[in-house]
């Protein structure tokens, strides 16, 4: 097996026992990139020379602590000092930040090696990475299908073996749905667990930075490196960061798992549902206690989520006015026209639609019926989860209603695309941790299982994920190489 096909924890062992060097790992990834990137198109910016240079410097020192020497990618909404950060938008096509996002800084302090900036739906709005202003990314399992989104480049590159892990952001499903579509592990931590400072926001009360890896062990390692309070992000929480790797135990006897009936109903592909029901049987055979529960307000979750996400996005997008950074239309002869024309030129259709929806929901005459109403539904959704978590440790459901769909298949009616958040958006509304792990295949495409934990109880969620992974082999399959 080639180096780029191994896991972070396997490479860590090889590096520490001097059986390989960081340079060899980077070169192995670069070879893979040369093979597949022309089709997959996961990178907006590839930092080949910088990565090799960093690896050589590290190899000279010969010390490999933490994530040292491991190549990774960042979604292109993480600010990186001196490196273009585009959000896959014409608006920021030439934007070069002068500082690093805290999560990115923590990885570079851990001596992990940045391979590049990954493609995404523009400003993290979308679920297919087709809405990148530059080019779509393709699913490494089937190039006619989307990788999911908005962190589609981050997930596709990890699945394709181009990088070992990546960071993404998730406001509704944007880490978990692409992880599900690409057959990798994607974790969105509790709101406040990881600093959002330096990450270009989409919906600030829903956004959270998270991790995409090939297995659960790697996921725990990377989360450890980025979690914790950051004085620069007032919404990051000062709770002690537990030892996530220590929570990975295969013994889950007596673990109480709930599956909400509303997450297995109409609109969910029958074969996807069957995979997750089968996974629940695996959990039962491992000694977990499985019960059906109800999250009674689920049918209201998606409309409420959309209103809040669009309202917050419309506020966040206000800063793109052509004054301090980003695209400006120089043809305007007064400042208001300059704002409007710059924004008209710089934003893509989906971003415009969401800004307009959010502006409408916040505007005089509509605020109470839409935005305020959605905030009340948010309270009800949180109460539903609180009630289930009085009696259960983890909630399990499908991550997405379907496997990866074909490019162009959801480009018509915007509601079709918005439906991708239906099983995951509630966890963002309630600030809960959620993760997607591979649990089967439908039409030769990976299926993701969604695990939801109590607030800041990532350890129990990781433990449940780890136990399933140890009992199954879905995570060992790679595009073009199914392990049966």
């Amino acid at each position, binding site marked *: 097996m080639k180096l780029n096909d191994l896991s972070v924890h396997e490479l860590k062992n090889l590096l520490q026992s001097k059986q390989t060097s960081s340079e060899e790992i980077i070169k192995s990834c670069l070879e893979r990139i040369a093979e597949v990137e022309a089709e997959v198109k996961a990178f907006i910016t590839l930092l080949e020379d910088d990565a090799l240079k960093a690896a050589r410097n590290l190899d000279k020192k010969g010390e490999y602590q933490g994530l040292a020497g491991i190549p990774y990618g960042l979604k292109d909404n993480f600010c990186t000092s001196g490196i273009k950060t585009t959000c896959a938008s014409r608006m920021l096509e030439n934007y070069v930040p002068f500082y690093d996002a805290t999560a990115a800084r923590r990885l570079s302090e851990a001596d992990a090696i940045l391979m590049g900036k990954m493609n995404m739906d523009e400003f993290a709005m979308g679920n297919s990475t087709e809405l990148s202003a530059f080019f779509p990314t393709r699913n490494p399992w089937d190039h006619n299908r989307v990788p999911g989104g908005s962190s589609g480049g981050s997930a596709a590159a990890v699945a394709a073996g181009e990088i070992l892990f990546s960071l993404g952001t998730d406001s509704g499903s944007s880490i978990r749905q692409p992880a599900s579509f690409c057959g990798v592990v994607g974790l969105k931590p509790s709101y406040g667990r990881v600093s959002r400072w330096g990450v270009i926001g989409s919906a600030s009360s829903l956004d959270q930075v998270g991790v995409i890896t090939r297995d659960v062990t790697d996921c725990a390692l990377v989360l450890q490196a980025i979690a914790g309070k950051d004085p620069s992000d007032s919404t990051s929480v000062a709770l002690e960061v537990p030892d996530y790797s220590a929570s990975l135990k295969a013994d889950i006897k007596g673990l109480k798992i709930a599956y909400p009936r509303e997450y297995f109903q109409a609109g969910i592909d029958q074969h996807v549902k069957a995979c997750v029901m089968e996974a629940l049987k695996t959990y039962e055979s491992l000694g977990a206690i499985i019960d059906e529960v109800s999250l009674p307000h689920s049918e209201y979750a998606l409309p409420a989520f959309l209103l809040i996400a669009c309202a917050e996005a419309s506020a966040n997008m206000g800063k793109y006015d052509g004054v301090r950074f980003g695209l400006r239309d120089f043809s305007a002869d007064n400042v208001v026209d300059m704002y409007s024309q710059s924004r008209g030129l710089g934003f893509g259709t989906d971003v*415009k639609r969401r800004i307009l929806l959010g502006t409408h929901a916040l505007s005089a005459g509509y605020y109470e019926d839409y935005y305020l109403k959605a905030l009340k539904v948010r309270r009800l959704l949180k109460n539903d989860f609180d009630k289930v978590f009085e009696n259960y440790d983890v909630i399990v459901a499908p991550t997405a209603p379907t496997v990866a769909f074909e490019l162009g298949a959801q480009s018509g009616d915007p509601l079709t695309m918005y439906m991708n958040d239906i099983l995951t958006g509630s966890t963002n509304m309630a600030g809960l941790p959620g993760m997607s792990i591979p649990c089967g295949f439908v039409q030769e495409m990976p299926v993701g299982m969604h695990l939801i934990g109590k607030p800041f109880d990532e350890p129990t969620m990781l433990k449940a994920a780890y136990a399933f992974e140890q009992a199954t082999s879905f995570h060992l399959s790679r595009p073009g190489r199914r392990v049966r």
Partner: protein
Amino acid sequence: MALTIAEVEHVAMLARISLNQSEKEQFALELGLVLNYADRLKSLQTDNIQPLDHILPVSNVFREDVVIGSPDREDMFANAPMAEDGQYRVPKII
């Protein structure tokens, strides 16, 4: 139900986004579709429910009042579409 073109123009004015005619027509339909879907919330009784605007019970997060480093002015201006004499330059305001 679709929004009217005048409604789309109003919200686009509030959002400061210029739209061409075909975009106005497209968004009139699409915004109507999504808002129609959102209208299902109206059937839910929420009179005594407190809105939840943020999941964390934090407000007024302070730090010690000490001087910390601030960004370099040149760095800040490096991304400006137009700057002059340490100021951002924009077209006529009034």
